[in-house]
């Protein structure tokens, strides 16, 4: 591939990944990401067709609270590159996806796990800046990662363009390293929640922690259901308190 095209594709992928953070204009969805990729490669109409088909695959893939975002962007960009550079007809999309989907799985790890772990260092530096009231430093840290996260996530596309085998190498890391990394990623939120519990905790609130946890763990309720139930119990408590006070 020409260097100019590779650079333009990298810039486009960077913009898509920045859009995940702000302003969520949805340019990272296949129905936009693929046509623009096609435009860069000289065939936007083919890009639109690929965007429609990969878009349908990812239509049901929805970001949910606290879960890592799946990566429809890398899959559709890589599929478009393979189709247009290989001069393949749209009927060949299925076989191209066999290459594009593994790259997008590595990409959700790269942008969603590694890219969500590195900024923890920024947050801890932000704690120190907040303690000293250094608002300029806080701004630099926050917006600094916002800008850096784009090229960081898009770097996988450059690796794919120049060293295609390396882009899927992450999937072939020793199992113990993968297990270790995924386990860390799955429990890191506990560090933030433990800290939050530490500041909101009072001994008399312990019962509500147990209730909230039990509604989720045993009754498999989602967070809206939990809040409705816990709020109901809080109302009962409110009533009892005000009755006891009027009796005095």
């Amino acid at each position, binding site marked *: 591939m020409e260097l100019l095209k590779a650079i333009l594709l990298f810039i486009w992928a960077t913009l898509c990944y920045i859009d995940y953070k702000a302003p969520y204009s949805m340019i990272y969805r296949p129905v936009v990401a693929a046509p623009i990729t096609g435009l860069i490669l000289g065939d936007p109409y083919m890009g639109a067709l690929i965007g429609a088909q990969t878009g349908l695959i990812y*239509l049901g893939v929805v970001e949910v609270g606290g879960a890592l975002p799946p990566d429809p962007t890398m899959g559709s960009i890589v599929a478009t590159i393979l189709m247009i550079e290989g001069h393949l007809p749209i009927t060949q999309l299925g076989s191209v996806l066999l290459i594009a989907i593994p790259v997008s799985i590595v990409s959700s790890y790269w942008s969603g796990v590694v890219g969500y772990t590195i900024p923890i260092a920024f947050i801890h530096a932000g704690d120190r800046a907040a*303690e000293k009231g250094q608002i300029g430093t806080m701004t630099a840290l926050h917006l600094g990662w*916002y800008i850096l996260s784009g090229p960081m996530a898009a770097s996988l596309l450059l690796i794919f363009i120049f060293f295609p085998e390396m882009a899927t190498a992450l999937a072939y890391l020793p199992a113990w390293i993968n297990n270790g990394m995924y386990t860390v990623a799955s429990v890191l939120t506990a560090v*933030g929640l433990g800290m939050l519990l530490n500041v909101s905790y009072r001994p008399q609130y312990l019962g509500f922690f147990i209730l909230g946890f039990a509604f989720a763990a045993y009754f498999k309720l989602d967070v809206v259901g939990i809040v409705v139930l816990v709020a109901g119990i*809080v109302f009962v408590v409110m009533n009892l308190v005000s009755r006891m006070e009027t009796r005095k």
Partner: protein
Amino acid sequence: MAKEPIQITNKDLWIIWVRQWFLMGSINLERWQSLGYAWTFIPLFSKLYGKDSPKLKEALVANMQFFNTTPQMAPIIMGLHVALLEQGATHEEINSMKTALMGPFAGIGDPLWYATIRTVFESIAIGLAAQGSLLCVPMLVVPYLAVMAVFMWYTLAWSYRGGKSFIQRVSGEEFRRYMDYVGMLAVGVVGGLTALWVGGSTPLAIDISGVKLELQALLNSILPKMIPLLVVLTSFVLYRRRISMVKVLLIIAVSAFVLGALGIMGP
């Protein structure tokens, strides 16, 4: 209920509206949108407390706590935050409000924005793209941005005004009591999120005379989500013992990596 209300202007709300678009800028696995939230409020805090004042530092530190919700729903919480701040609520009370509301608004917001509103525009765009029309690009981007911008501004202004008129109606004593109830709700939400947002399980299995007994299945029948609960309580206890945030992070991360690598724990 407040004695000296601080003057909040439309311009202050406007600055928050602009900044909250970047709420996700430094999103991460530990505290998610915490720095983004604190950053959104920097101009308002500076205006209220003055630059370099101890109160500014206190406000910034208080807002570096765990925060995560659907970004499109965050202005509702921020509007209430401004109203509470204006009426003299403490940072602790505000934190309870943020914690109690972030979970349910994520629960409502994700299906509303990603599964419903976006899917509507995206389906139309896919229809256009399938016919080879490049109108698919503006068809998704333009209406989605417009709906979001209008929604975020009106919910911010509405929750600020609604919150303000509610707080002004109740007496100071009543208000403190309500905030105590919000604190209960907040701790309940943290309990629920422990089970919902934290991962961790065990792949261990014991072979008893040909019958494979999976430890996780056994744990599930006693206390489901026991491992997430243990990890949250461990970090909570470490913070109680005044161990620094960086150390708690390292302790949890290193032990999770070792346990994961040894095959004792999994995601």
